[in-house]
């Protein structure tokens, strides 16, 4: 099985590589369209800022490539948000795989909540193959200031200030707001589930 991690300008992908290594999977980090197209599984990671990342993807036509992929694709954190239609982070039009889904900033004015949300939060209302053998209320590690609202693609919810989407799925596209590569055994199970789709 060939697993690729899409290489672009959004942050540190080493953690993902190490997590895959811990579950016995060697992945290739690449921005080569042919390699990405030929892969069995594609991981689209990312931390950082939405408009800069989208600008980079468009400049290399990786945007068109990503939305045309037929194999299972997993967006992680910013990767998930970029698969949505729009992000309020610098008013960015994103890839639109999760059609009509918008990403907004957590509003913590007048609350004791901090932004970004940083740490372990539970996920619930788990649906679909990504969460096989993952417990309702399993804890995952999150770091984010922007969130995807609840919508028809939501396959896991979390609650911070209000409920929001912890994971999304549409056809072969999956997205998780948390970092499975840093989420202990629950995260490892989710990565294994994705790789065995």
């Amino acid at each position, binding site marked *: 099985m060939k697993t690729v991690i899409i290489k672009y300008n959004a*942050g*540190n992908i*080493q*953690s993902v590589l*190490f*997590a895959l*290594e*811990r579950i016995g999977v060697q992945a290739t980090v690449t921005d080569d369209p042919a390699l990405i197209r030929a892969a069995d599984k594609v991981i689209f990671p990312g*931390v*950082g800022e939405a408009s800069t990342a989208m600008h980079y993807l468009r400049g290399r036509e990786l945007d068109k490539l990503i939305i045309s992929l037929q194999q299972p694709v997993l967006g992680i954190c910013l990767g998930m948000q970029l698969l949505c239609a729009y992000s309020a982070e610098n008013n960015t039009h994103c890839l639109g795989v999760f059609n009509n889904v918008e990403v907004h900033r957590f509003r*913590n004015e007048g609350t*004791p909540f*901090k*932004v*970004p*949300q*940083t*740490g*372990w*939060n*539970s996920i619930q209302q788990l649906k679909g193959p990504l969460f096989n053998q993952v417990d309702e209320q399993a*804890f995952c*590690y*999150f*770091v984010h200031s922007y969130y995807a609202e609840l919508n028809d693609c939501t396959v896991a919810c979390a*609650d*911070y200030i209000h409920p929001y989407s912890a994971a999304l799925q549409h056809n072969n596209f999956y997205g998780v707001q948390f*970092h499975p*590569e*840093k*989420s*202990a*055994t629950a*995260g*490892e199970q989710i990565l294994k589930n994705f790789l065995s789709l």
Partner: protein
Amino acid sequence: MLTKRIIPCLDIKDGRTVKGTNFLELRDAGDPVELAMRYCEEGADELVFLDITATTEKRKTLAGLVRKIATHINIPFTVGGGINNVEDVRLLLDNGADKISVNTSAVRRPELINELSLQFGSQCVVLAIDAKRIDGSWKVVTHGGRTPTLLSATDWAKEAAKRGAGEILLTSMENDGTKNGFALDITGEISRSVSIPVIASGGAGSLQHFADVFIKAQADAALAASIFHFREIPIAELKRYLQEQQIPVRI
């Protein structure tokens, strides 16, 4: 619900874990990778590795050790000690660190925080502040606590947050190693002053101390070293206790 984090800290010297009192009198506490794996199993939420000799001896944190840790543990970890520039950070992140912490180098040149957050994202930039009460007010001290400054700890935390730090790791040098409890006043003051998470450090000696720092000082996470190393407080027992006190924790 977002949980409060329990973070064991491993002070590293010459590739071994050590822990002293008030940053002096080092005691050997074992192999860092072995300890890190034990903490993962016991339910630690995150780990911090500080190369405590790095600043003084101008020695870089060993990238090889970081790589070894990254291949063995599945929770986030931070590496600090002697980080002066973007290249130092890149080396650690490339070897699998999730976050880095800066302390003295950021006091010397605050722009470092901007540069690191721009390059790698705020989520991986932890500003460590060592604070000491001097003439009744909390001031920043550098070089492992040996050099006092005129900088107010709270003002520095606010400035760091503005410059793009993702978290504040606040250590009270008064409390560190004493086991008399965290510095609740300055922890609470800083936690209320910034919108980024504050990790409280220095002084943990009992279960109650952790409950106090979460409830009375609104800390987002609490860090300790020797009480975990020597199993004086097992992490699982601490988390059960906090849960009984209605404090959300990951169990």
